[in-house]
């Protein structure tokens, strides 16, 4: 496996951002973990100096146990055909971040989605309003502490006869013999057990 | 004044006949379309039942008096056009009022309905309707040039503007204007494609993009009346074209054959064609059809 260009990038990143944890995952995949306040300069650096001109994706992961949100940026370099995955963790209690729409205009839409689904507040983005959900007044639905079954049960009329419906994770777990972590059980209790 | 009861009869039954023929043609069109698309298709009476259903709707809504009157405008234009077109040659019953008008008059009275419709559509407040009207009017400007060229060519060739005179001149098969002035026929029939609004010139109603355009706010009896009007108007237009180019008809069988043959031209074109954008269709009309029209005029002049 030839990781020459990936390593080169890793070296370059390390030289400029000493605190960055760079990991070459495999061919064409570099993962960088960084402090959240260094993200804007880093993205700018990646775009201007490392030729990662395309922001392919921008998402959020809820690390409930660590009480953190992880923002994930995926950048692509057309010159070297390398994907750079930038991760950073921000506080979950009061999730705040700065907008990067000045670097990639399409980031605005991603930020709106993340805002709606996780409640992350992006400073500088003035379009963080209603996006996909209409008139949503509960917890942001993609947070893991949001109980969707409970919500659906409270808000929608449920026709009887669906008592055997169950969480798909449970079914998978049963079939594969995998153990469900404790925290997950909290959110996937079968209706009849409750 | 002595009342000619035969004429009164003609005035009463001509629209009815036109309606029946028009509706049947509509049904046949759907069947033919279906067959070409490898389908079975609805029954012939489908259009008729559609219209009956629309009339028997229990609620009807309108956005104002112009929308209320719009189908009236349309059907008035259709019936008036029909009255001023000689349906059957030398028949007391079916010439109606055709001796009072001429070709240019017919061109204008035909617009009357569209104008009224457009006003009604405007009042409905639906932007799709207005967009449709905008497209329709633009397209009309497109096909009007070849059509007028053709009509002018015919008028100067036969030195008359009266339809009855034109029919009288085409008493023989080889005197038909389609043979005497083929370019005029070409220009006119291409314009006719646009006039009928079948594909590729159906951007006006384009159901998928502007929700059927002009009639998008019409339902119930209004839509029913519009469809009735369209049936009559189709028949009137076909009769007019038959009268101009195919020497009219001496009896109903001939009339049905000739009009149906003419009608198949836009229908068959429509089935196999995609849709032009407005500017494309305008450009289309201003290209070959116009050239044919100019040729027709030039040939006559020389």
């Amino acid at each position, binding site marked *: 496996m030839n990781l020459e260009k990936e390593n080169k990038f890793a070296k370059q990143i390390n030289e400029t951002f000493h605190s960055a944890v760079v990991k070459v995952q495999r061919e064409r995949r570099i993962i960088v973990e960084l402090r959240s306040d260094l993200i804007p300069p880093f993205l700018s650096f990646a775009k201007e100096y490392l030729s990662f001109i395309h922001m392919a994706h921008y998402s959020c992961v809820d690390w409930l146990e660590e009480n953190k949100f992880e923002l994930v940026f995926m950048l692509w370099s057309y010159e070297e055909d390398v994907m750079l995955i930038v991760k950073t963790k921000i506080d979950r209690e009061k999730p705040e971040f700065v907008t990067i729409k000045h670097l990639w205009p399409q980031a605005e839409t991603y930020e709106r989605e993340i805002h709606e689904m996780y409640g992350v507040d992006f400073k500088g983005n003035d379009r963080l309003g209603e996006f996909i959900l*209409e008139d949503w007044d509960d917890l942001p639905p993609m947070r893991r502490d949001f109980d969707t079954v409970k919500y659906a049960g409270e*808000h929608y009329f449920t026709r009887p006869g669906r008592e055997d419906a169950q969480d798909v994770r449970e079914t998978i777990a049963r079939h594969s013999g995998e153990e469900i972590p404790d925290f997950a059980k909290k959110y996937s209790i079968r209706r009849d057990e409750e | 004044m002595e009342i000619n009861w035969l004429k009164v009869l003609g005035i009463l039954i001509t629209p009815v006949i036109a309606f029946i023929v028009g509706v049947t043609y509509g049904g046949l069109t759907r069947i033919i379309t279906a067959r070409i698309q490898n389908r079975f298709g609805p029954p012939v009476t489908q259009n008729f039942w559609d219209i009956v259903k629309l009339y028997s709707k229990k609620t009807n809504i309108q956005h104002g008096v112009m929308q209320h009157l719009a189908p009236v405008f349309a059907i008035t234009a259709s019936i008036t056009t029909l009255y001023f077109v000689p349906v059957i040659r030398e028949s007391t019953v079916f010439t109606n009022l055709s001796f009072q008008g001429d070709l240019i008059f017919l061109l204008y009275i035909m617009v009357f309905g569209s104008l009224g419709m457009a006003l009604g559509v405007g009042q409905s407040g639906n932007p799709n309707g207005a967009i449709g009207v905008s497209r329709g009017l633009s397209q009309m400007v497109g096909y009007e040039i070849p059509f007028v060229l053709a009509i002018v060519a015919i008028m100067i060739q036969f030195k008359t503007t009266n339809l009855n005179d034109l029919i009288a001149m085409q008493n023989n098969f080889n005197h038909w204007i389609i043979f005497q002035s083929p370019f005029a026929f070409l220009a006119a029939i291409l314009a006719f494609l646009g006039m009928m609004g079948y594909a590729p010139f159906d951007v006006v109603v384009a159901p998928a993009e502007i929700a059927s355009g002009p009639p998008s706010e019409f339902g119930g009896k209004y839509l029913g009346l519009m469809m009735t009007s369209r049936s009559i108007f189709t028949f009137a237009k076909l009769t007019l074209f038959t009268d101009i180019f195919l020497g009219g008809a001496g009896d109903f069988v001939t009339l049905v054959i000739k009009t149906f043959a003419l009608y198949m031209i836009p229908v068959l074109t429509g089935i196999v064609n995609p849709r032009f954008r407005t500017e494309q269709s305008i450009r289309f009309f201003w290209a070959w059809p116009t050239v044919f029209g100019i040729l027709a005029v030039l040939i006559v002049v020389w």
Partner: protein
Amino acid sequence: MINDKYANKIVDIIQNFARKSSLWVVAYGTGCGAIEIPPTMTSRYDAERFGIRGSATPRQADVLLITGYLSTKTLKRVIRTYEQMQDPKYVIGFGSCTINGGMYWDSYNTIKALDQYLPVDVFINGCMPRPEAVISGFIKLQELIKEGKANGAQKYKENLEWYRENQRKVIKNWKMPDYNW
């Protein structure tokens, strides 16, 4: 005009027949089930045989086809569309999702039972139902119409309060014009 009982009956029969043989479906694909409509309409199954035809606007349409799951956001539009249709009008619930939520039983954003919100004349089961099933659903509807039993609109009008209450429960920001007929 004519108050004769038999005459009225004849008129009713003719009208019902016309309604039955001309069903215009408003083209509103709410969910994934809408993908079954093209094969139903085109040459393989050719629904036009039964006078079923697409219609671009609710003003002209007779049948509202709810093709699958219905998120609350869409529900608002569907209600609006339904109310804009002209009486007589029919609703067909299409697919499991309209019956009991289907695979979206626990979704925070989809309704689970359509008939709580709109008067459904015919349900078609399946996830998703095949064109044959769709056509059979339509034929069922036609039978109902012919017998004069497809009176969902009537039901809706009479029980408007109840429907409204249910609708309002789901749609929080209720800003809809009045339903005035």
